[in-house]
């Protein structure tokens, strides 16, 4: 299987999604199986490509048009890791009780999220970003309760405003550089985007992408949406979609805007996100909104970590992001089990030992109690910030540590209520079907990773080294340094019709 097959990971879920509503009119079960099959095939394709790449990188010229004229997908460890997480997590959080339309939207969401991880073209990223947005509006609004529709409408308006800013940012970048390909932009950025105009373009794109990534100040939708929808959908949006938006921001920061001011902007907004999110979580009186605000805080930490230049920041950011990807969806599933006001949960955890144990585990890891992975993720973040040594970075480190204290305060308070000896007026029984299998799986992975810290750390370091390797990226996509700066039109198209594919492909892939 060649690396080109990776486009199947986007195409197959879309195909299944297109057919799902029509098929679902005659058989809902068939639509469901079609969706599962497409996601499984997508995961299999990504997995086999990852195995074949074996730590290398590759670029795929979609349609055979060589970048920068056509759209390129870029495959490195970071892209494939997040792309592979998409079908897996989507399968785990599949809307089992949904209609064929919901299946279709979930599949479209998965395809778009995969595209966000792989694509190396800013406008193509915008299209996939909008696709995740529209699919998630539909999924949120599909809930019966009227609050879901109101939340979806408010989410839509904010997100659409953000998209306009993103589009304006892309327009400015294109006007300055005349290209949309990230690798080509990386070669042009030093001379064309190193000024206030470039910084403005980055700020516009950051605000646009920040809506999905729960970045301060465009995260007003988070508590409303997450507390109106099912735990599965909240888990999917908080765990997966937000991370992919962050991934896009990181790619843009590393490749196109490698300026201290851009990183500082991310640091400041991330820090504000931590402060606002954690304080609101501390004040929250119900479980769902507590987790939603805590999610804002955690994403703030991710942004702060990624703002550190070089591989150290990428390693820390990836660690926090992956840890959050693992814990927060599982916590939302547990929140669905208990739901409701924290005070009303008095004693609810007693007698449900598996759920309580999982909750304790995730809470401890989220706070960052050693030796759980959450501790190492936060440690990496704080250390990389301190090593950077600038004033704002130190302040960020202090805020991260202070946030830990606040997180501990509210999570332990909730824990105390859950496990209180005396029972409340009427102890709320789990009113929805137990969804412990997925949460247990996340718990097992979390515990398992404690025993594999060293290989995990090495793996992350390898990913980060690849991710910050701008020259490698440019070489892989454009097939050689310097070529992109020369005029693209001067290179005659080779091959039959479609132009030559100049992607660098390791020999074992080409076979």
């Amino acid at each position, binding site marked *: 299987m060649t690396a080109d097959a990776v486009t199947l990971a986007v195409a197959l879920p879309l195909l299944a999604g297109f057919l799902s509503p029509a098929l679902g009119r005659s058989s809902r079960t068939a639509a469901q199986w079609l969706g599962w099959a497409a996601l499984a095939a997508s995961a299999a394709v990504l997995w086999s490509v990852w195995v074949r790449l074996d730590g290398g990188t590759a670029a795929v010229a979609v349609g055979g048009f060589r970048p920068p004229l056509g759209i390129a997908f870029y495959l490195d460890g970071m892209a494939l890791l997040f792309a592979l997480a998409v079908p897996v997590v989507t399968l785990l959080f599949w809307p089992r009780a949904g209609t064929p339309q919901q299946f279709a939207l979930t599949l479209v969401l998965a395809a778009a999220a995969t595209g966000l991880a792989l694509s190396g073209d800013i*406008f193509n990223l915008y*299209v996939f970003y*909008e696709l995740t*947005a*529209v699919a998630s*509006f*539909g999924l949120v*609004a599909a809930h019966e*309760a*009227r*609050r879901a*529709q*109101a*939340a*979806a*409408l*408010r989410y*839509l*308006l904010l997100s*659409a*405003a953000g*998209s*306009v800013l993103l*589009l*304006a940012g*892309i*327009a400015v970048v*294109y*006007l300055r550089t*005349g290209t*949309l390909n990230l690798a080509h932009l990386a070669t042009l950025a030093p001379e064309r985007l190193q000024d206030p105009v470039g910084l403005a373009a980055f700020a516009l794109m950051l605000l646009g992408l920040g809506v999905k990534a729960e970045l301060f100040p465009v995260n007003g939708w988070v*508590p*409303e949406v997450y*507390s*109106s929808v099912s735990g599965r959908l909240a888990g999917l949006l908080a765990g997966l979609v937000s991370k992919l938006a962050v991934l896009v921001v990181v790619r843009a920061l590393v490749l196109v805007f490698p300026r201290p001011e851009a990183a500082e902007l991310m640091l400041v907004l991330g820090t504000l996100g931590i402060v606002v999110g954690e304080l609101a979580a*501390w004040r929250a*009186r*119900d*479980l*769902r*909104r507590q987790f939603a605000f805590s999610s804002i805080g955690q994403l703030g930490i991710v942004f702060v970590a990624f703002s550190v230049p070089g591989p150290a920041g990428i390693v820390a950011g990836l660690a926090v992001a992956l840890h959050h990807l693992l814990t927060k969806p599982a916590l939302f599933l547990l929140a669905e089990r208990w*739901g*409701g*006001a924290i*005070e*009303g949960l008095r004693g609810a955890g007693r007698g449900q030992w598996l759920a309580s144990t999982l909750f304790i585990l995730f809470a401890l890891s989220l706070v960052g109690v050693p030796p759980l992975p959450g501790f190492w993720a936060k440690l990496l973040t704080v250390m990389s910030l301190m090593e950077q040594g600038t004033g704002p970075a130190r302040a960020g480190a202090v805020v991260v540590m202070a946030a830990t204290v606040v997180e501990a*305060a*509210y999570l*332990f*308070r909730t824990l105390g*209520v859950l496990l209180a000896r005396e029972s409340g007026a009427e102890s709320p029984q789990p009113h929805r079907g137990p969804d412990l299998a997925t949460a247990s799986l996340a718990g097992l992975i979390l515990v398992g990773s404690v025993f594999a810290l060293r290989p995990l750390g090495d793996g992350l370091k390898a990913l980060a080294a690849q991710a910050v390797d701008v020259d490698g990226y440019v070489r892989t996509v454009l097939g050689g340094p310097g070529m992109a700066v020369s005029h693209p039109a001067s290179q005659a198209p080779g091959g039959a019709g479609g132009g030559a594919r100049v992607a660098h492909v390791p020999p074992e892939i080409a076979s």
Partner: protein
Amino acid sequence: MSLPPLEIVLYAGAVSLLIIGLAGLVMSEHLVRLVLALGVAEAGGNLLLVLTGFRQGAVAPILLGAAPSGPMVDPIPQALVLTAIVIGVGVQALALALVLRVRRAYGTVHMSALRARLVEDLDEAAGLPPEGSREAPGVERPV
């Protein structure tokens, strides 16, 4: 008095539409107006995008018959703006459908009222007492 160059006029128009739309999104209260403001902002964004391919005195990038007489404008932004317009249509249709549904469910088309009712709904769904009793005794505070 001489007119400013055409591209500056176009650019100023696009940016103005963008800003008018964004300001409308912030200040409007009526839900339908918010959707309209979104449309205006999107129109501004799209104009800005298509303007990136504008060249003085160039013709449309269509090769018909003989070789093109003059320079042609950049075809890529035209393709991009087609995509952006279609995206905008989809988003606005969904927004209007949601407005219809929300009006029927809440009986209001005002954003501030909707926000207040939404928070009430969320509190109610979580089984919380109304906001007023936040500091009432019995709500445990961490030390």
